[in-house]
């Protein structure tokens, strides 16, 4: 399931709902991204997340579908927030549920890696030197790349 929203979310509620009533599920892996108070060595007092409504949902749905194609997953959830957020605030939740722990863990890792490079979100940071747009990290491209070279079977 995909949700793109301004509001915060409750991790406990979301993860409980993911597995609710399904007794086949043996493992739930999740990743939560938080706003940090440092960016490129400068203090960050807030972050504004802009996105491309429509394409965001489309890309996230494609990424989710790809995860289901690669691993035996009973349920997945991606929640991504937009708007103004402060350090410590939640930005994103990725969660995967599977009968098997390896599938849940690998798919969770895959989802956040792909989301980082494929979902059309942009961050602008408020710093003492003024606002500035966050630059893309080459690390993120490298992280995505790992899942396209046919090595996902040997994760990690």
């Amino acid at each position, binding site marked *: 399931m995909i949700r793109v929203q301004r509001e915060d979310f409750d991790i406990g509620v979301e993860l409980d709902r993911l597995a609710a009533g399904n007794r086949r599920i043996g493992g739930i892996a999740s990743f939560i991204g938080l706003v940090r108070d440092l960016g490129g060595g400068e203090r960050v007092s807030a972050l504004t997340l*802009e996105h*491309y409504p429509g394409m965001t949902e489309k*890309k996230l749905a494609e990424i989710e579908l790809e995860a289901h194609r690669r691993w035996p997953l009973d349920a997945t959830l991606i929640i991504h927030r937009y708007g103004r957020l402060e350090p410590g605030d939640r930005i994103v939740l990725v969660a995967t549920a599977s009968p098997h722990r390896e599938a849940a863990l690998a798919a969770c890792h895959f989802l956040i890696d792909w989301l980082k*490079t494929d979902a*059309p*979100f*942009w961050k602008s940071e408020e710093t003492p030197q003024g606002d500035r*747009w966050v630059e*893309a990290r080459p690390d993120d491209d490298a992280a995505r790349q790992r899942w396209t070279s046919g090595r996902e079977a040997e994760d990690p």
Partner: protein
Amino acid sequence: MKILYFAWLRARIGCAEEEVRLPPQVRDVAGMLDWLRSRGGGRAEALQNPAIVHVAVNQDYVDLDHPVREGDEVAIFPPVTGG
């Protein structure tokens, strides 16, 4: 045709969305970008580096040789930084 700009491209061009009518000789993304650069209003500077200018047509990432047609929804934006 609708063109959307995001993030610092939107800020530099000073425009989030514009309605344009492409000249008939413009058939692909590369041609469209060249034509947009010629229109002024900060576009030449904002769109100059193809390495950091990404294009989506109808909400899919596309390359420079992808066709563009009247009625397409085109979006131009820098590398994404979500997550």
